[in-house]
């Protein structure tokens, strides 16, 4: 049996992200999805005779954002190139891309393992390009082409061959998705194809410094498939080498149904793209001023934000991780914190608990995004303020929260309308406690004879009698006092 432990995989990823610009890369057509096939088109994206591309500035801006977020150098001058090949979903017979002088080069991201360790993964380049159309293969009516997607802007992010396991590749892809969604430049949806990933894979004996022959694996259209496809391909290459065979340099397509990677037909593969500078577009000039302007709009990144939560709010690492996974959730949490009357480590933790458990639970049950969550952060803070100032108990708060989901009333209104204000008046609680004690002489005797566990019974009875509105802390104190007297 070949032993995987003697081999080391070397993986580099090419990630394509569809940008969330309003219009296409080189014409003013809308980028909206789900429209009727071939409705978002014009002579330019259809490649009609005589048309010319005009660059959408927002594409450059989004790419600069990604470049800055991944510590790249932003080129003051970069150029577009034509990538020439024939395909029915490519109306011009070439794709406008960048080749020799991309906009962003030499960056990196930190991937983070479950144990908190980090690893730096190099980014070779990030360049702009336009998407091709989409061939819809239909057995009844031959192949039809939907060109709505034609000309939608993409960025391609090319990593260095720094990844050493399918899991690292997964973590890297996860990180890239987190960054693009945080930046708001891509929705990160792999199943719908707005995030796509190809991998270059080779294996070598451990300790070897030279790279082995690599293959390219395409069509891994979900996070799960990326890890599985890479594991498959690494296993295949090791098996070949152990068997004394050679790895062929080829392109493979991941077939998720069969769980195997199949070589592409050689005819499709034998592309000579004949890149040359796109003569219809002038070089893209980006001055420092523009870079600075874009820099000023960058949001705080997940890892930075997480570290800040640890320091500023003294949250446990688990909380900080969960809250910062998604930008929307972290923004919500901070909205809650912002409106707290009392700002302390305890109230921060309360805000974290409510966001992490109650809010997230509702999102999961109702299958909604944080942006569609019905309770504004300000209302959740107000509810926490009511807990902190003793107006309601934590238990009552659960009811108030449920009510907030339905009624849109502020928590204060809910509490007042339903008479949920906590009773903290000593006399009122004493009166009820006295009644309970006098009605349950037997239990009182038990307690006094040392059976402390009946204490809970008295608490329960008191709360029940007061419909849960009694201040639990005071109930405890008064009961203790009365029972020991």
């Amino acid at each position, binding site marked *: 049996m070949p032993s995987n432990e003697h081999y080391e995989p070397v993986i580099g990823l090419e990630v394509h992200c569809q940008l969330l610009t309003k219009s296409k890369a080189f014409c003013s057509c809308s980028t909206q999805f789900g429209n009727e096939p071939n409705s978002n088109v014009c*002579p330019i994206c*259809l*490649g*009609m*005779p*005589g*048309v*010319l*591309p*005009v*660059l959408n500035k927002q594409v450059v801006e989004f790419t600069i954002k990604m470049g800055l977020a991944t510590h790249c150098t932003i080129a003051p001058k970069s150029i577009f190139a*034509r990538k*020439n090949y*024939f395909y*029915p979903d490519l*109306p*011009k*017979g*070439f794709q406008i891309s960048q080749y020799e002088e991309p906009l962003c080069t030499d960056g990196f991201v930190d991937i983070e393992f479950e144990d908190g360790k980090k690893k730096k993964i190099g980014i070779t380049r990030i360049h702009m390009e336009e998407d091709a159309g989409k061939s819809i293969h239909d057995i009844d009516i031959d192949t039809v*082409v939907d060109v709505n997607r034609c000309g939608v802007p993409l960025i391609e992010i090319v990593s260095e061959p720094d990844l050493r396991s399918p899991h690292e590749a997964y973590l890297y892809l996860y990180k890239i998705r987190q960054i693009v969604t945080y930046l708001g430049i891509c929705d990160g949806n792999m199943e719908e194809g707005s995030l796509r990933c190809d991998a270059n894979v080779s294996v070598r004996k451990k300790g070897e410094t030279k790279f082995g022959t690599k293959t390219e694996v395409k069509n891994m259209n979900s996070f799960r498939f990326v890890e599985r496809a890479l594991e498959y391909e690494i296993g295949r290459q090791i098996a070949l080498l152990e068997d004394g065979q050679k790895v062929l340099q080829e392109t493979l397509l991941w077939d998720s149904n069969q769980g195997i990677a199949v070589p592409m037909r050689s*005819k499709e593969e034998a592309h*000579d793209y*004949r*890149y*040359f500078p796109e*003569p*219809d*577009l*002038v070089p893209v000039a980006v001055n420092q001023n523009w870079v600075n302007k874009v820099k000023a709009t960058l949001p705080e990144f997940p890892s930075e934000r997480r570290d800040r939560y640890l320091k500023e709010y003294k949250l446990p690492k688990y909380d900080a991780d969960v809250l910062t996974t998604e930008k929307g959730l972290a923004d919500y949490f901070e909205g809650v914190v912002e409106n707290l009357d009392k700002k302390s480590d305890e109230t921060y933790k309360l805000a974290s608990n409510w966001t992490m458990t109650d809010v997230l639970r509702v999102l999961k049950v109702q299958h909604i995004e944080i942006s569609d969550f019905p309770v504004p952060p300000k209302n959740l803070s107000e509810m926490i303020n009511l807990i902190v100032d003793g107006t309601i108990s934590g238990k009552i708060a659960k009811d108030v929260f449920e009510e907030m989901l339905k009624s849109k009333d502020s928590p204060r209104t809910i509490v007042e309308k339903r008479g949920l204000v906590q009773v903290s008046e000593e006399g009122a609680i004493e009166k009820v406690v006295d009644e309970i004690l006098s009605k349950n002489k037997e239990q009182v005797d038990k307690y006094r004879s040392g059976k402390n566990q009946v204490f809970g019974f008295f608490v329960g009875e008191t709360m029940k009698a007061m419909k849960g509105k009694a201040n639990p802390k005071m109930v405890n104190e008064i009961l203790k006092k009365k029972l020991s007297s």
Partner: protein
Amino acid sequence: MKSFDILRQELSAGTTSCEKIAQTYLAAIDNGKHLNTFLSVFAEKARLNAVAIDKKLKSGKAGPLAGMVVSVKDVICVKDERVTCGSRILENFVSLYDATAVSRLKAADAVIIGKCNMDEFAMGSSTENSAFGRVKLPQDGARIPGGSSGGSAVAVRAGMSTTSLGSDTGGSIRQPAALTGVVGMKPTYGRVSRYGLVAFASSLDCIGPFGVCVKDVAAVLKVIAGHDENDSTSAVVPVPDYVSSLTKDIQGLRVGLPKEYYGSALNTEIREAVERKIESLRKNGANVVEVSLPSTDYCIATYYILATAEASSNLARYDGARYGYRSQNPEDLMEMYVESRTNGFGAEVKRRIMLGTYVLSAGYYDAYYKKGQIVRRLIYDDFHRAFEKVDVLITPTSPTTAFRAGEKADDPLQMYLSDIYTTSANLAGIPGISVPCGNDKQGLPIGLQVLGKHFDEATVLKVADFLETNV
């Protein structure tokens, strides 16, 4: 062959109307059918348009080109009209929009009368490479009118339109202007929007006007020039009033004669004709000096590498999949591509697509395309240095006068040499104009070329205007 000036005079004298003018041209087109000048004629549209402009003239609200009738090379888009590019592959293709140059002409109240025949996809120097038959020289039907804008040149020469729009990638306006005996100008690259010009070689293509005189060319250029947001390569440079710059004042003008253009290969009659014109410049106060453009020998080679490379990519969209000619009942996708392109394109277009594909291929890119780019820069630098010393350069436009049809058809290299004096302006991006310069012994027109600095069309036009009237 009435100039726009004369037409305007007749209009204001009331002896004619736009409608009459249009009808005169339509009649000339009808009578000249044997010349095969037009691929489509918008007879009824043009007449109605002219009637509308007559009304505007009466109310004093007409645009600056009211009374002018323009024909358009069939490589430039006119909304709702066919744009064949002289090719079988686009035979029935109708454009959905107006080229910017065309919409500007329409806005200035010029009447568009039809589309002119041309070498297929503007590839050729004789207008023999049209899928719809060759265009004949009006002076001698056995001869060619030059190309690729041969139809436009003949339309002006034979009085079928006042002016015409052509396109010039390596001489395709200037050379047919010279051979037919009219004025034709290639402006600075970026001066006129290319939006709506079906691309041959994007970094070289220019739209420019033909006219019976320099003044008409200046009037059209004024209207079509200027930045266009639909063309990223169109320049943001102010457009002067070209007509008012035609002062005929050449006192102190510095004129350069690039010695490489007057070598022993030049036909004696053409040399003498050009020299006579130069002499009149001298006599009228210009300083004429010899200059050198050392990279001249590399122009044709550089041009055919870069132009074909771009063409191979620009013409990739004609694959039968979305519009245009498609082969019948292909077995599969590859066969549809191969058959559509094999049958849809003519021989010269296929030759250039193959050349261009070759020079961009892996392993050849550095040796050809990249080297071509480097030499292009040297050619640019040559002109830049020359224009430090002189204001304009004067050369012959074409090494020969109009040749016989078929004479060079089987020898592409001989045909390519027709552009020996014209490709350099496209490679350097500078403006150039061809003006009539007398006739040879057979009575065939000779052309003289004036080249100028980037965006200095005003000086080029001024010199051309002087030469046109002073022998």
